[in-house]
């Protein structure tokens, strides 16, 4: 049975992405007791699935590693992975949280040696790679996963694969009897940091994401560019594995559109500029990039990055939101539209089309365990009606990492104020 030490001076953080980790660490490092609840088997959220960070083009693993080290060192922080908050009752300063823990089937003895993965045969779509590749039924979610502990897919439980995994483990780390648990514990304030998810590209019917293999999303492209990713870092056409030298980026895919997401997702212009550098790095002078846009929004200090990308001769910027995509006989996606500067029609074939997909809140409004004030896009509002529940990062708005982290620090301060006032009342 999992035990959590908590009081109504404890801060609960829901979601262990960069925002949730930041909020949890900031609060824990001031001496507050913090419980961090993460749905996935590891921390880091969607940042762990990026290849490089704009604007410095450094690797996100570096920032995540620092946070993971801070987490390991802090005795005030309890991390629950494969966990979800299913209930929250009470009021500001005095909540009871109900958390459901899914079985991992691997205990703390695991050394991440990987023998179990070698022993099993069944394969599954790899969610870490947005389904672009496969993973085994016994797996480490990704190279840098924290906790660095393997997971058994529930689908292999009761099959010979589960027995094979158990037999392979030399550390007695596999426990096939693990059950789902539900635990209750008190807390005084809650930080909601459940982040975002990519908008469902198949809903943008004219772009044919669900019909054309060589139309992919920007989050998938991040995985493709990663040398440890499903293609070994090669930028290729999913249809035939040929090099994707001529690439189209379609901006505002699902964003700023009353048929889809109302808001500007704010980071996708920068994300595409960054991804342009991936193509240039891969193919140099042979790269041919077309960026189709309504307006380019390189917010404040990112202007320099934009200017640098803009200066590259191999990148063309076309002011047009494409009307549709078709596929030619070679399986090349053809982008159709009218160029706003001159009203010229175009029908341009590419090797690969990347949809700069919009960000929407990951939590469906109906599934919040407490009444909460959301804006019309579904992001959490700052509102006194939310009591002791505060949003951090992507759950509050479409933000880049820098802004998400700032926002999370603000949320930590608000939560600390609540538990401080609980502490004062009890003196």
């Amino acid at each position: 049975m999992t035990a959590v030490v908590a009081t109504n001076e404890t801060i609960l953080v829901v979601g262990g992405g960069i925002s949730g980790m930041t909020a949890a660490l900031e609060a824990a490092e001031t001496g507050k007791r913090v419980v961090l609840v993460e749905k996935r088997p590891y921390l880091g959220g969607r940042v762990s699935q990026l290849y490089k960070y704009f604007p410095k083009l450094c690797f996100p693993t570096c920032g995540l590693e620092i946070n993971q080290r801070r987490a390991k060192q802090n005795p005030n922080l309890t991390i629950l992975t494969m966990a979800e908050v299913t209930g929250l009752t009470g009021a500001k300063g005095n909540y009871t949280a109900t958390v459901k823990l899914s079985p991992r089937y691997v205990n703390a003895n695991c050394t991440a040696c990987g023998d179990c993965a070698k022993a099993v045969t069944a394969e599954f779509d790899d969610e870490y790679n947005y389904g672009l590749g496969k993973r085994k039924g016994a797996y480490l979610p990704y190279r840098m996963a924290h906790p660095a502990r393997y997971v058994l897919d529930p689908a292999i439980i009761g099959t010979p694969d589960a027995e094979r995994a158990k037999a392979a483990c030399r550390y007695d780390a596999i426990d096939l009897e693990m059950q789902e648990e539900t635990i209750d514990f008190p807390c005084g304030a809650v930080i909601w940091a459940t982040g975002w998810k990519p908008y469902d590209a198949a809903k943008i019917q004219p772009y044919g994401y669900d019909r054309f293999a060589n139309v992919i999303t920007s989050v998938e492209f991040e995985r493709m560019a990663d040398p440890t990713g499903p293609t070994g870092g090669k930028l290729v056409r999913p249809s035939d594995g040929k090099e994707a030298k001529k690439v189209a980026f379609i901006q505002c895919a699902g964003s700023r559109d009353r048929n889809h997401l109302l808001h500007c997702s704010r980071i996708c212009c920068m994300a595409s500029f960054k991804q342009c550098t991936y193509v240039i790095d891969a193919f140099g002078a042979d790269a041919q990039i077309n960026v189709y846009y309504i307006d380019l929004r390189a917010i404040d200090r990112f202007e320099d990055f934009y200017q640098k990308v803009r200066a590259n001769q191999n990148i063309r910027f076309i002011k047009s939101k494409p009307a549709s995509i078709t596929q030619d006989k070679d399986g090349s996606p053809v982008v159709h539209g009218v160029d706003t500067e001159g009203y010229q029609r175009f029908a341009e074939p590419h090797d690969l089309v990347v949809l700069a997909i919009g960000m929407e809140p990951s939590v469906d409004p109906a599934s919040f365990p407490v009444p909460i004030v959301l804006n019309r896009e579904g992001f959490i509002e700052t509102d006194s009606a939310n009591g002791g529940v505060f949003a951090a990062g992507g759950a509050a708005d479409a933000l880049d990492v820098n802004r998400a982290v700032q926002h999370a620090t603000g949320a930590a301060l608000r939560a600390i104020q609540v538990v401080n006032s609980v502490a004062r009342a009890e003196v």
Partner: protein
Amino acid sequence: MGELNTAMIERYRNSFLKEVEANVEEGEWVKMCMQCGVCSGSCPLGKFWEHPPQEIFMMIRAGKREAVLQSESVWMCTSCYNCIVRCPRELPITHIMHGLAHYAKRLGLVPKTNPTAKFAQMFWDNLMVKGRINELKLGLALYFMNGFGDGIKVALKNQKLGMAMMKTGRMNPKEAFGGHAVKDLAGFHKVLKKAQELEDARIAQNGPPAGA
């Protein structure tokens, strides 16, 4: 140029956009266009026009009054609704195009030879007589739209279609002698008269100052 046109120029001297907002059906939507280009790229006929919808909306904002109201493009929309379903700003593009055409017609600015405008007028006149379309007369009028010689040629070319329509009862040769009417023809005309009154009142509200 017509009197109404002169009055409108006088009234909205500096802002064609305001004129469109006040006088064109759904015209108040024009300012919502963000010039993304989806409508133009989606229009199946756009490549045959001078100005796709997005450009028309930009021209309105740029005050290109004559170029818009005298353009053939506003008459080319076939109401396929491709643009409307895709417009990220949900502009009722189709209706605006028809609204502009209608406004141009009121002002007497329609290009003389525009076939769609001509056909629309024929259709209207035909419908007014009996409250139903007289396919035979409309068809004949359409054939002879460009003169007698041309009409015979077109009629011969479409002979098969005409015969088929007669066989299936879609067209009746007897329609040449009067044709059938709606049940309450007087009522039909009354409805239209009332509609015209309402429309005139609406126009008077936004239109030229009294006496103009």
